[in-house]
């Protein structure tokens, strides 16, 4: 899978630093894996099938046929609360940009998957733990609005530790903002799919992640509203290992399917196919009016 130029250029310095590491150790089975082999296997451990957390552009590269037209990349975090603790919020952001090679916690845009045009948003845990602040909310809202305008299906990959504390209530309100955009998209009959990757919790989990037509999850992904630690503190006992895993949620009826990363693109493309006739009809109606 060669990396397209546009993608390589977007990765910037941080990504190069990260890619420079020759090997990674699997956090589950301890196996030492060459980065190159790991990347070739879609960042799934070749020994134990553990799904590593993926970088947003790796994910996009895995899914999108060719070009990917980003939406909202220029939207950058402000500092509405003028937050300071050990560092100021802008310093934290700058650090995460450097470290992750990303401009924020989500990459959003339009591209095609096996020929199907789709609006795609990919959250990235490497940027402030995938927390949702105003940039994540704004970019996803722009994505959802653009999908609606163009009668496109929308797929969002979630990875989030919850709302971003340093943006306070502005962060919480992104749940409302994204939901409003989701509502309009779905009212128009567009397909909306979410793919929950490890971890998906808090404000992301309790908004668009569970508002979609089809909720897909990656194997073993941790998914829940409250964090594990909070629950353990509340009930004063350890939780079983499988609690809040994708498999647990499947049994509890909360999600539609758990899909191995190797089957993920094909699965998503099939979902797009089931609803593509509707999209075609919607587009035709728009053109008929012109």
């Amino acid at each position, binding site marked *: 899978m060669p990396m397209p130029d546009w993608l390589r250029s977007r990765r910037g310095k941080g990504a190069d630093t990260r890619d420079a590491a020759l090997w990674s150790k699997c956090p589950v089975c301890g196996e030492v894996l060459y980065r190159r082999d790991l990347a070739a296997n879609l960042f799934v451990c070749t020994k134990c099938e553990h799904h590593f957390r993926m970088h947003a552009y790796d994910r996009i590269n895995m899914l999108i046929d060719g070009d990917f037209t980003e939406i909202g990349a*220029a939207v950058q975090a402000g500092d509405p609360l003028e937050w300071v603790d050990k560092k100021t919020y802008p310093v934290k952001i700058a650090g995460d940009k450097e470290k992750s090679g990303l401009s924020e916690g989500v990459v959003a845009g339009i591209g095609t998957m096996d020929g199907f045009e789709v609006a795609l948003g990919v959250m990235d845990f490497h940027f402030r733990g995938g927390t949702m602040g105003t940039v994540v909310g704004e970019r996803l809202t722009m994505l959802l609005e653009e999908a609606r305008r163009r009668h496109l299906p929308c797929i969002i990959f979630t990875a989030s530790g919850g709302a971003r504390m340093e943006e306070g209530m502005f962060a919480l309100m992104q749940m409302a903002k994204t939901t*409003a955009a989701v509502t309009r998209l779905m009212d128009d009959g567009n397909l909306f799919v979410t793919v929950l990757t490890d971890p998906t919790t808090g404000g992301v989990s309790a908004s668009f992640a*569970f*508002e979609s037509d089809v909720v897909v999850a990656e194997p073993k992904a941790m998914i829940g509203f409250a964090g594990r630690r909070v629950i353990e503190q*509340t009930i004063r006992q350890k939780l079983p290992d499988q609690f809040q895993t994708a498999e647990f949620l499947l049994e509890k009826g*909360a999600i539609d399917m758990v899909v191995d990363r190797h089957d993920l693109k094909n699965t998503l493309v099939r979902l797009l196919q089931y609803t593509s006739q509707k999209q075609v009809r919607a587009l035709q109606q728009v053109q008929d009016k012109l």
Partner: protein
Amino acid sequence: MNNSIVERERGLLELERRIAELRNANVSQPVDMSAEIAALQQKYEELQREIFGHLTPWEKVHMARHPNRPTSLDYISQLDRFDELHGDRMFRDDPAIVAGFALLHGRPVMVMGQQRGRDTKENLRRNFGMVTPEGYRKVQRLAHTASRLDVPIVTFIDTKGADPGITSEEHAQSEAIAKCLYEFTEARVPIVASIIGEGGSGGALALGIADHVIMLEHSVYSVASPEGCAAILWGDATKAEEAAARLKLTAADLRAFGIIDEIVPEPLGGAHREPATVVSTVLGSVSMALQRLGAMSTDALREARYQKYRRIGAWETERLEVIGTSR
């Protein structure tokens, strides 16, 4: 949990009691004590101003959690009429949500509030106002019914947050809250929300998407509880006071941010000192907002609601900039 406001008002309450005793004694005794009473009264007022004249964010958190602070039922009981509706129609009736049809100043509304207890027994029954998925599904159901029947929605928010228990996770707490947001966004009727105590995180927002959001002066509304925020950011829940200051969770902050629409002032000492007045002022504000919103068409109402939330936190936005198509 210690409440600093409860601690600090103890001396004041003692002083109040003494003034009242002196007044009573003054009537029946020959010696005139008026001067002493006036002096005490003056001291009382100074003390009151000193304690309550300026509250820090952390003090406001304690004020918002004050055990005597008016709860949702204190507001609901002052409506012209209330018929409680129960249950999610599937699994359970959650007592942490009190909801039903009501008349507010003669106007039919669907009212729903988060309800904590006044004492341990009621707190256990009400789960300290922490709502379970079944409670949020009751909210969804009634919001949907209200929308269909063209009855405006009035909510009262007062919760530390959604219930974080095992069963709540197993019953898809995330989904329950998400679908509340969805239902409130979709609703074809005016929605007015009032944050009367603590507005904690997504569990509060589930009842908080509204065309008009009112906050009591000393209520707080935040992305996480100060304790939770301190634990998340600094691994130390005892730094909650610092978190409270940083989170900008006061009514004044949020009004300035455009996240809430109206502040209802509280008497010196807090809402619980004059509950009847506070309740009636809030209900008056709700009523006025409903009157204004009721004049809007459904389409205009929904568009305005969309734009209101669409704008929040959208600085430095370019509408749609295209980059990265170099290939």
